């Protein structure tokens, strides 16, 4: 049953340098599994949009190869693009189009014969059926986003790209969007979304990739990232500095700050024993005088900020 499936998208050594000389992608290697939800997390300008635009054919890769469903995106663009639907970040819709017309147009554009019943079905799935004859510019932002999704789904793609699907969207709509993504996944669609909301990645993704400054810093199952998320820190401030850690603390996962005033102990909240009592006893036995105690939970946000930060310092 669990035979490893070939990745539905495979990216090798992808770089992109724009004409102005700015290198936005600096060697991306990425395999996307069939049927997964992958969240690409990263600050603005990290290269997320360039990455998905390249896969969709809007941007030419400078070097590297991308295959979708085993086909090369440049040589076999007709095959690869049929497999892919793209929902752009901006609410880009023609001004005077009627909802149903613009979705039918998308279907035709991707080479499928007209099927009004199928288009109505897609509109229905997105709760747009009652808006089918509305002019798109008169719809609210959330509705426009759904029209864009309907357009992207009109040719029944196997892969859906959502570029910042919930940017500037209120909480309720965001939850609706998440439910929709889940529904799509159940229908077998592979979903890649970019976001800078960590909460969003946590909520819906199977895997999370962190992109910063054109590099993929980390990509892992969400659960693995969550495990490192479960880490907590106990910070012990000392009254007087010490040169090195006392031997009684050797068995603990502790670090001493450079100035010698602070000991940081990292522990797993999910474990049965946190080890705080033993640690504090050991501190006491070593004759250290405490000034302050502090515990903090490292969030995915911290991990993310740290990753991005340390990357920028490189």
């Amino acid at each position, binding site marked *: 049953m669990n035979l490893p499936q070939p990745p539905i998208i495979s990216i090798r050594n992808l770089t992109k340098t724009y*004409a102005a000389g700015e290198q936005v992608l600096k060697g991306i290697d990425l395999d996307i599994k069939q049927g997964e939800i992958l969240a690409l997390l990263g600050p603005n300008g990290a290269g997320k949009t360039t990455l998905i635009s390249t896969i969709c054919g809007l941007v030419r890769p400078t070097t590297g190869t991308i295959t979708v469903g085993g086909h090369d995106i440049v040589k076999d663009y007709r095959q690869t693009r049929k497999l892919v639907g793209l929902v752009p970040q901006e609410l880009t819709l023609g001004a005077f189009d009627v909802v149903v017309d613009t979705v039918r147009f998308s279907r*035709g554009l991707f080479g499928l014969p007209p099927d009004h019943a199928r288009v109505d079905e897609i509109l229905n799935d997105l709760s747009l059926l009652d808006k089918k004859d509305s002019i798109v510019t008169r719809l609210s932002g959330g509705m426009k986003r759904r029209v864009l999704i309907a357009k992207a789904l009109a040719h029944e793609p196997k892969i859906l790209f959502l570029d910042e699907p919930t940017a500037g969207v209120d909480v309720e709509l965001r939850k609706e969007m998440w439910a929709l993504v889940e529904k799509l996944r159940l229908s077998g669609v592979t979903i890649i979304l970019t976001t800078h909301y960590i909460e969003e990645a946590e909520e819906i993704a199977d895997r999370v990739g962190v992109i910063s400054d054109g590099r993929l810093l980390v990509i892992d199952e969400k659960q693995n990232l969550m495990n490192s998320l479960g880490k907590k820190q106990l910070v012990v401030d000392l009254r007087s500095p010490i040169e090195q850690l006392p031997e009684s603390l050797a068995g603990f996962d502790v670090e001493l700050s450079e100035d010698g005033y602070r000991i940081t102990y990292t522990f797993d909240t999910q474990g049965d024993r946190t080890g705080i009592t033993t640690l504090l006893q050991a501190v006491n036995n070593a004759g250290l005088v405490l000034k302050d105690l502090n515990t903090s939970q490292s969030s995915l946000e911290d991990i993310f900020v740290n990753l991005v930060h340390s990357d920028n310092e490189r």
Partner: protein
Amino acid sequence: MNVEAIKAIYFNEMRRTRKTLLQSIASPVISTVLYFVVFGSAIGSRIQSVDDVSYGLFIVPGLIMLSLLTQSISNASFGIFFLKFTGSIYEIMSAPVSFFEVVIGFVGAAATKSFIIGTIILATAGFFVELRIAHPFWMLFFLVTTCISFSLLGFIIGLWADNFEKLQLIPLLVITPLVFLGGSFYSVSMLPEFWQKVTLFNPVLYLISGFRWSFFEVSDVSVTVSLVMISVFLLTCLATVYFMFKTGYKLKQ
């Protein structure tokens, strides 16, 4: 060949045309009527016939060309420019379509609209003068080729323009003068000799001359030259569009 995509683009553009049908047809008809009132009746009654053709009748082919050229360019340029302007061009760029299919869709729709307008102007002219068309087939040929060539040119302008000013620039600064100086309202033989020579560099002259020949069998330059020139123009536009798509000009980085 993605025939569904061509159909989708073509009918989508035609739908846009239908929505603005009244203004797209009313304005050329009104301006044609005005030209007839001013040039045909008011001034034309004082002008002798040109090459044995009454002045009112003589200007009919030129008037049609004037509208055809400006309409073809504005229709085709606006269609593609608007997609760039709203950003919705992303969809076409990410679709499994070739440059050729996109051009057929857009240019086909723009040319169709121009053709309809040309026919309407011809019919309108029929209310003012007694039309006679010596070579209906060639008349149609010139009409269709002009619609296609200038829709292509419009498409190129629409791709090139990155703001509304540029979109208007070429039609206003280049096309309108070329049409007016290309013999729409006069025979080139009426010009001083020097300007007759200068006019030969105006590509529009060959269009109007050939088109007028198909009506009255009078022309400023030989019909063969007209045919060659329009073919050259058509091919140049095709080559330019092809080059633009190949290089992703202004579309793809």
